[in-house]
């Protein structure tokens, strides 16, 4: 059976008001669906965070009946229906892929949340306007306060982020960047994280790493220290360029898909 995402809904307005975290996830999801040649359309809903079954957004609404929230859930959903990019990988490579995906969804995502919500320059000039674009007063004052408190609670619940500072964030960013670059450095050209028969094999890991890095590199933020920390790894930049040029990955939404 063919899985057709006849209406894939993504969170927040992709035409300019999207928050960094939402852009990371939505780029990852779009790239994954493109790799499976599944059609979708993009719509923005101001309440996508509440439509989500687990609070993660964007969400994909498939066949008007299934709601899939976030990249990880989408991978599981597609895998159950026979759409899995990494099916030719060995068990050891599969474990490695899941480890690196976990690195992105835990550590890199925490960095993105921190830089969006807890660095005041970014919060006041990018995150807050995007988050309150569709909210009326007094919700535009109350809800960002609760959301920011929720992000802080999530970050401090992770042991190593008990005492968060910018220096910690930069050190963490350099650590994540070097881990990803180390994996990419296994091959001569950083075309993808895995190879099969000496050819680049695009997997779910490539989709999510490209999604996050592309969003971080191309989103204009007043405080761009995270971008600088990750950009120190030239392999990551080459990986993103290779994905765009050789494989047609796009970090920007295809205009014909916009509803």
């Amino acid at each position, binding site marked *: 059976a063919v899985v057709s995402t006849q209406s894939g809904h993504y969170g927040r307005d992709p035409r300019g008001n999207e928050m960094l975290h939402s852009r990371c996830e939505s780029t990852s999801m779009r790239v994954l669906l493109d790799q499976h040649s599944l059609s979708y359309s993009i719509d923005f*809903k*101001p*309440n996508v*965070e*509440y*439509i989500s079954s687990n609070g993660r957004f964007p969400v994909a*609404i498939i066949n*008007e*009946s*299934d*709601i899939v929230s976030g990249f990880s859930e989408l991978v599981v959903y597609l895998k159950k229906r026979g759409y899995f990019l990494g099916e030719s990988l060995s068990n050891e490579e599969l474990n490695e892929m899941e480890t690196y995906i976990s690195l992105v969804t835990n550590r890199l995502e925490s960095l993105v949340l921190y830089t969006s919500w807890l660095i005041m320059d970014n919060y006041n000039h990018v995150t807050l306007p995007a988050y309150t674009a569709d*909210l*009326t*007063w*007094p*919700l535009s004052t*109350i*809800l960002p306060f609760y959301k920011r408190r929720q992000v802080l609670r999530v970050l401090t619940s992770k042991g190593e982020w008990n005492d968060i500072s910018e220096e910690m964030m930069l050190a963490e960013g350099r650590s994540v960047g070097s881990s990803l670059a180390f994996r990419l450095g296994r091959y001569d050209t950083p075309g993808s994280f895995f190879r099969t028969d000496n050819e680049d094999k695009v997997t779910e890991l490539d989709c999510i790493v490209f999604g996050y890095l592309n969003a971080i590199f191309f989103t204009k933020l007043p405080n761009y220290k995270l971008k600088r920390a990750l950009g120190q790894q030239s392999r990551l930049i080459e990986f993103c360029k290779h994905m765009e040029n050789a494989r047609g990955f796009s970090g920007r939404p295809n205009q014909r898909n916009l509803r």
Partner: protein
Amino acid sequence: SSGINAEWPLRPGTGLKRVKSDVVVPFLKPLLATNTFGELVAATKVLRRTLEETDAFNEIVIDISKHAPSPSKEVVVSVCVKENRRITVGMTVKNDVNSTDGSFDVYGKLRNLFGRMESLSVKYSKGTNILSGCHVTLHKPIFPQLRSHVLFTTSTEQTLNRSSGFSTSDYLARLEYQFEGLGGLHVCQGDGLWQQIHGSKAPVAVREEYGHHTKFCVRHEYTRDRRDDNLTPTRGSRVSVKSELAGFLGDANHVRVDGDVSKSTRLPLGLAATLTARAGFIHTFSETSRVPITERFFCGGPGSVRGFFTDGVGDQAGGRPLGGLYHWGVGLSLHRHLPFSPYIWGLGKFMRLHGFVNTGSLESQPGELMAKPRVSVGSGLIIKVADRFKMEINYALPLLFAPGDTINRGFQFGIGINFL
């Protein structure tokens, strides 16, 4: 004046302890406007009812006596009251007037805060659709000639809509003014509401309603009830019209009108007929503003068009009703006491047999409102409970319905006050 002067000896100590006397005097002034003894008696009845409604007194003795012998035919009206307890704690079970939902309330009340008949009450509710609710209300009677009251309420409620499958968390601040006029009761309200719609398992169309929204609105409700019985009326009529205007602040931007009329009359052979009609609409002021699912009308069920599941008329998604912006309903009911033995073990006097015809519709476009009417017929038993609400056990047959409606052919049970 015809020669009867009414005056009252309002002495300190006539039952007034905490309540200041200047607060009570305006209530007594209508007695001065009477010209005949009959008017005086009628005015004292109104006075009793008015003083009872303030909830400040629990014993009201009004004595009209003549000084005898007196050539001037003087009449002395004595009003003696006993103030209600300052602090009251209690429990009640109540049923929502316009639905089949009920709740159990635990309340505490503090009366006469400053000696001017104010009261402060705190109420905790739990019920069929209220998962938990806490209300704090400050109440003050004003303008006795209009029998008017001012109430300020702040409340928080968690509710569950079982038919649509969502829950709400509400924070409400309400200023309310009630007064009597045009033969009925007017209630004017100003609301500030912050509501979050949420839930777990629900169809996509319902999940797309989830999120926060605010509503700032003014509302007017007029109710006139001249029926001889509010549960099984045999004579009289009831009119209720609610109008709401939202859009000053917040997300809501609409006008909402909802009306309910019923007329009862006695027929031969012990029968009584009740004809009820309802209708309502919501109109938004801009094309971009949406009406959240909590504001929409629903139709169908034991208290509405019988023969359908609760809210089973209209658009559905995954078996869950989505509501509509326009609705109407008409019901004709014939009822009478049980035949042969209206006093079966003493319970028969609380029961009535009835047969009914219901019709109605619910749509989101006005042009389609009359295109697909739903019709059902049936018969059943009405049981009055403690003169507070009634239960109906009916057998209903839907004759006309639309694809997508969830019909309930057969026995149906309902509890409430106002049925169609």
